């Protein structure tokens, strides 16, 4: 049985609320205030990149700007920063468009250990990710205000890539940047209403992992990656 005890449970909820069960779809009210749309309203894409950069400083994240032509070089520099010898990367249709497929091939030729997520390898992908120095994915929606990359994890972009390696690099097409989380929420809400299923895991990632559980001291790097780099690519 996929759902158990629902009727009695919800009947009780309704009766405590002093009415019968709701059978018709509930209309969401128009809320009296909507301050979320005022944040960074009217800012150009370039201004949003600046906002993102300001926030990156606060979240212990390195942000680099680059062009499509220079993306490879920028990635190479970032990998050097992390002394990245083994790399796990998402399989993404944008790999071609951004020249990453050939880049990964060239890294392999240079003797680096590069694994692009491969469904046919099953759980082995996870074991590889666990050993990798660096995980690389694209950002699907980028939130300037909070410095967040949003990933719609799927069969090519496994959850482990941005999670298990010691360090994480997000490639951010400039066109994916929106002012704040409201843009992502609206996008997913509207897609859902149009009948598109949301991905099995939506990851909003804001810099490296951290904790303040010991005497409220900020420790950067706990269970998730201990360092993170964002590379913003001019794609507009």
């Amino acid at each position: 049985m996929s759902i158990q005890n629902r009727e009695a449970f919800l009947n009780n909820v309704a009766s405590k609320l002093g009415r019968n069960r709701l059978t018709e779809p509930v209309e969401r009210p128009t809320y009296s205030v909507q301050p979320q749309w005022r944040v960074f309203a009217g800012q150009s894409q370039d201004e949003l990149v600046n906002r993102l950069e300001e926030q990156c400083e606060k979240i212990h994240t390195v942000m680099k700007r680059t062009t499509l032509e220079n993306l490879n070089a920028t990635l190479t520099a970032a990998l050097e920063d992390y002394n990245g010898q083994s790399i796990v990367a998402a399989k993404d249709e944008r790999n071609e468009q951004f020249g990453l497929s050939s880049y990964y091939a060239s890294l392999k030729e240079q003797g680096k250990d590069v694994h692009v997520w491969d469904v046919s390898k099953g759980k082995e992908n996870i074991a590889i990710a666990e050993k990798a120095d660096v995980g690389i994915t694209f950002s699907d929606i980028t939130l300037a205000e909070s410095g967040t990359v949003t990933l719609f994890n799927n069969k090519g972009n496994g959850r482990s890539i941005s999670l298990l390696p010691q360090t994480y690099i997000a490639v951010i097409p400039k066109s994916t940047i929106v002012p704040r989380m409201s843009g992502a929420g609206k996008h997913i809400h509207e897609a859902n209403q149009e009948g598109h299923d949301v991905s099995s895991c939506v990851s909003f990632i804001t810099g490296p992992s951290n904790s303040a559980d010991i005497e409220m001291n900020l420790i950067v790097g706990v269970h998730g990656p201990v360092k993170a780099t964002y590379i913003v690519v001019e794609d507009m």
Partner: protein
Amino acid sequence: MGIKIGNAPFKERIQEGISNDFMRGAVSSAQGRMRTGRLTAAEELGDWEDWRVLGEEIRSHTLTNLDYYLQQLSDQVVKRGGKVFFAQTAEEANEYVQNVIKQKNAKKIVKSKSMVTEEIGLNAAIEQAGAEVIETDLGEWILQLDDHDPPSHIVTPALHKNKEQIRDTFAEKKGYDKSSKPEELAAFAREQLREDFLTADVGITGCNFAVAESGAVTLVTNEGNARLATSLPDTQISVMGMERIVPTWEDLDIVVSLLTRAAVGQKLTSYVTAITGTRLEEEVDGPEDYHLVIVDNGRSNILGTEFQSALHCIRCAACINVCPVYRHVGGHSYGSIYPGPIGAVLTPLLDGYDNHKELPYASTLCAACTEACPVRIPLHEHLIRHREIIVEKENKAPASEKLMMEGFAKWGSHPAAYKLSAKMARTALKPWTKDEKITNGPGPLKGWTDVRDFPAPSKQSFRAWFKSREKGGNK
């Protein structure tokens, strides 16, 4: 463990808290940081009052239509391959989880921080089912290793411990041999727990907010442990209090934005992770078997009452972080896994007045909590309502207090009696008065003068002065 922690009477717990200097220092500095963080974050965001109003409206709308949204949520989760269990009680929830563990023949469970699982005592139930359960949030792991010390704060559960105590616990239980530097302690936890994540059979999480429209369960964390617990084990169980739900992803944005700012002053935490059902065809990580357990455990009794807005709580602990009473007595003094102002409101509602009748009085009603709450729960008003119920319905006020209040009513409703007492006050207190002050007052005044002086009543009451002035007397 359940909602109630410890068996010592309230006054003893308070004394223990007050005399714990390390804890008080830690709490005080933590409060300072979190309060500053919250205020700065609110200021940077701008329109904070509008955000609070919006948060309140979303929570209020959701709770008013809770049966609909829970139905929608469960339909969506099932559509995405998950199973949903509605648990009226803690026992039902625990039994369901035990059954899943037994069916899977699971031996090792990794768990990310969750207050509702503390509330229902899930860990004990899992151990009963013969499996090992490992708390993976750094703070929770510390507490678990330290012989299941209870949490003292809902966001930073090990706030009452210092790094030397933590190092000793790690050394004793896990053979740790490095320093008490927080970074080294955390690195040790990463290394130890990573192995557990990779080998666990089941991952258990709580739920910050479920999204009804799509069946997502959202986890708001910084360490990444909730991501690991939802990515690696093949079986996942999410346990949610039934009120932890929003209608849509647009609403999720608002409540998450309020939560992270109000809790720690972050614009967003490092990870906000929304899990929907099982992993899809060809996906490698994420669970193949997904269970959502929706827990009532007394919550429905709050619906439709004057306390309904207490269910709007988004568990940010902003009220705890501004509470001066919490600062001085610490979390354990409340005798509940939910401490501070929200704890003093929720605990008696979920667990009855018998064990918790002192909690609503553990507040000066200064309303700092109400002012800080990001979804505008009138916490101090709820505390007054609790007091009213304790006095007038439960009849639990001390006899001496009842007597005094009867006297008060007569005094306050009879101006002649009031006037006489105003006139007599100075004379009546004369035996205890010295140099215009009282340092060892009688009766109820003793509680006052034990810790501070009480002034002698004025030589002439105001009303006497006003009267003589009207007659053209002294000015």
